[in-house]
């Protein structure tokens, strides 16, 4: 599949797509996050969004109490404050209710400044040859 077709499929997709930006608050492991939700190429508004986080290697045992997101200033934007237990990779779980019900799982690497997407599922190899 070439790039254009991939892009097209993303635009046409009826399942919601999400993008996340987080900034560290200064308090240990607490982040202010802004979530952009898109659906079918348009901002998804009026959704009821809850943000949780799991540790990828122990998803059932290490999870963070989810926070309700509030609508932001831009269309399709939602804001939430995340309180994690440590730095490193987290699987962010966005639960959507309202016009669309869904659960989106995104992988982000959290450091002392903020978060950047990690290619979800990449194994953290201790050793590199």
């Amino acid at each position: 599949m070439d790039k254009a077709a991939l892009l097209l499929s993303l635009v046409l997709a009826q399942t919601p797509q999400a993008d996340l930006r987080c900034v560290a608050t200064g308090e240990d492991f607490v982040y202010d996050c802004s979530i952009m939700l898109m659906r079918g190429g348009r901002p998804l508004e009026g959704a009821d969004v809850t943000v949780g986080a799991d540790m990828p290697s122990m998803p059932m045992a290490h999870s963070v109490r989810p926070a309700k997101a509030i609508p932001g200033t831009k269309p399709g934007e939602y804001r939430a404050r995340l309180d994690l237990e440590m730095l490193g990779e987290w699987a962010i779980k966005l639960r959507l209710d309202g016009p669309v019900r869904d659960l989106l799982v995104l992988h982000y690497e959290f450091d002392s400044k903020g978060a950047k997407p990690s290619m979800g599922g990449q194994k953290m190899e201790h050793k590199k040859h």
Partner: protein
Amino acid sequence: MDDYALGVLTNIGLFSFIALSAYLLLIAGEMSFGQQAFFGVGAYAGGILTALYGWPLPLAALAAMALGALAQFLVALPTLRLRGLYFAMATLAAAEMARILFELLHWRRSIDGELAGPDGTQGFRGIRWIFEHGIEPLHYLGIVGVLLALVLGLFVFVERSKLGATLRGIGQDPELAASVGIDVQRVKLGLAAAAGALAALGGVLYAHHNTYIEPRNFDIMLGVHSLAYALIGGLGTAFGPLLGVLLDIGVLESTRVFHGYRMIVFGGLVAVLLVFRPRGLLDERMVLWIRQRFS
């Protein structure tokens, strides 16, 4: 009940399935480091069937359980004569192989114009059956709870039957069990298949609860945790593993009293507990005492 409480309760239920599968092998005297593999087999098989081929979840769950049973049966066939650490290591090797095979698994199909399906280390997104069918979190918890109750009922029934006595007999002294005419290998093979099915059931429910799975969900951490839950809860009754899960996830994780220190507290508690109760809180003696007290 808020979403978080629902999530925690559902996780307790999901974990109980794999802890029970570890328990089933433990009472017959075998320690497995590999139950996570069959949990994973169930998760992947169930997810592929519902998300890629449009199977209804109940049917997919049955197929996943059958596959889990078959997988553990095949692993058990050449390894059941091994004892102790040898068996544990053989199951660990099998489970790590399974995890790497999940990493190599690319099974992508176009669903509604989107590519879906397992994508190696990138994981498997969009196992959305319960959302497509409008199942609320509370309903899903109900489904998990009812299935767990059924499994527990089956355990209680089996443990009171002759088969239960046979299993414990094999666990205590396989030579003695063989000498009274029990076909130990056959019983253990059946047990392995049952444990595989049980873990796979947990896996398929987990995949649909989370909508997303990836290979490292099924690494040794999950397997050893389930073993630990079974042991600290107690080897005297099938409620033991449930108690173990409840103690860790239900009490320590969800109350968040030890936010950030939880594993330090839990690890210390487990080690100290095992000094005094090496077969767990609800061990055989405790179960006997409770029965005498309340019957």
